[in-house]
């Protein structure tokens, strides 16, 4: 199977001389849910930006062996335009791509429905809770029907029940759409719960310290979160993260 995205010997050094990450190699196959797990400041967010093409790497190459897939990006903050309603925020990617307004609006409504926010189309961001704003942000990323979804600690600022609900909804969307997700997080439990593959990074400059495949046959759910196999996997991921620090 050819990879959807392939990073070869990429590294990023900022203009002020700070080494953000690398060099590192990473190939992500279509349909995988990959977590980049590492301490704050290890450059994992920068890796996402390089993959999205928002930042040029200082060395190495980012390639898409098939063709450049449609990319969706979800930031740590909801990053909504406060002067636009939820619907108009979700419509933005389609609008920028030149999709006709009626069509864009229909697809935006569909995306809002999928993240469970029907009835809030006309609401402005300041009228929504943190979790709801994050749902709008995810709907916006889904509106343009991405193949590759890049997520930069999207749930870090949310409370635990909201975070778990969003984790479950994200897994559902990932399965239904056959998405490929690269998910940056510093939470052992979140990465273990969500991923098919956890990539553990070292502190800055981030390199890949370990990789753990998590191949659970059944759909993940609340019961999975309490199961012994989840605990075992989380312990393994946690040990790898500790190892990366040493």
């Amino acid at each position, binding site marked *: 199977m050819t990879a959807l995205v392939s990073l070869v010997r990429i590294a990023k050094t900022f203009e002020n001389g700070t080494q953000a990450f690398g060099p590192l190699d990473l190939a992500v196959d279509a349909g995988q849910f990959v977590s980049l797990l590492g301490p704050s400041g290890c450059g994992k967010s920068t890796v996402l930006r390089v993959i999205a093409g928002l930042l040029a790497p200082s060395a190495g190459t980012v390639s898409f062996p098939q063709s450049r897939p449609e990319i969706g990006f979800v930031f740590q903050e909801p990053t909504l335009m406060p002067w636009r309603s939820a619907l108009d925020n979700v419509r933005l990617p389609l*609008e920028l791509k030149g999709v006709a307004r009626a069509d864009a609006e229909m697809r935006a409504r569909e995306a809002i429905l999928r993240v469970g926010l029907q009835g809030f189309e006309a609401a402005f961001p300041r009228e929504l809770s943190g979790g709801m704003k994050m749902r709008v942000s995810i709907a916006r990323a889904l509106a343009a029907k991405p193949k590759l979804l890049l997520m930069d600690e999207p749930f870090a600022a949310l409370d635990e029940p909201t975070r778990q609900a969003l984790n479950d909804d994200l897994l559902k969307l990932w399965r239904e759409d056959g998405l490929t997700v690269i998910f940056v997080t510093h939470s052992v439990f979140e990465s273990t719960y969500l991923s098919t593959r956890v990539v553990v990074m070292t502190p800055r400059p981030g390199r890949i310290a370990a990789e753990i495949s998590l191949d659970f046959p059944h759909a993940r759910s609340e019961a999975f979160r309490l199961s012994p196999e989840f605990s075992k996997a989380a312990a393994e991921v946690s040990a790898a993260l500790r190892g990366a620090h040493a």
Partner: protein
Amino acid sequence: MNTALRYATPVLLGIVVLALWEFTVDHFGIPPYVLPAPSAIAAAFADNFSSLMASLWTTLRVTLEAMVAAFVGATALAVLFSLSKAIENALYPYAVVLQVTPVIAITPLILLWVGFERINIALVIIGFIVAFFPILSNTTIGLRSTDHNLIDLFRLYGASRWQILWKLQLPSSLPYLLGAMKISGGLALVGAVVGEFTAGSGTATGLAWRITEAGNRLEIAKMFAALALLAALGIAIFSLLTLLEWALLHRWHESALKKDQ
């Protein structure tokens, strides 16, 4: 405090002060060329109604033209600054020089160059100069403080520079721009008035000229009437801009949130 009371208290205070004023002038026999009673000012206002209204219109027009010119010029320059750091570096110091030089000191020059026969154009230029800088400086900050992640998002979806400016940076800077407009509205009026005072007995026909004229003739009541109109004009401009700000921002911006929410 309920709304009715909030509006009633300043009105009541005004009435009390006016009554006290009327009584004091009457009781102590203060001559009208020192301090005219409110009733005398009202009479002067009625007597000179048409000339005062004509002057009010002149000053209003000059002020509005200066505001529009400052809005268009300063916003355009701020956009230019946001597009090119080099242009900003080259021009910003001169904008500051224009701002820090007291406008009254350059007023005679402008009057001389434009000519007294076209005094209203000169007054618009003076109003423009004082109203320009707050809009330029605030809008520049507003355009620059756009959420960088949103700019990245626009770039991810292949937005053009123009789309980023129009759909993202300008709406982001709207609260800054509107705040500056409230300051600049008052300043444009100051510019229009200062220009007219400096021009003196020329061809000016605005409210400042009415004040100068009435002062020269010791018609102090008429002077007060013109002064009251100037204050009313300033309040009207400020209120309209506050209303515009509310209309454009109240649905989404934090500044428009009610405190009890």
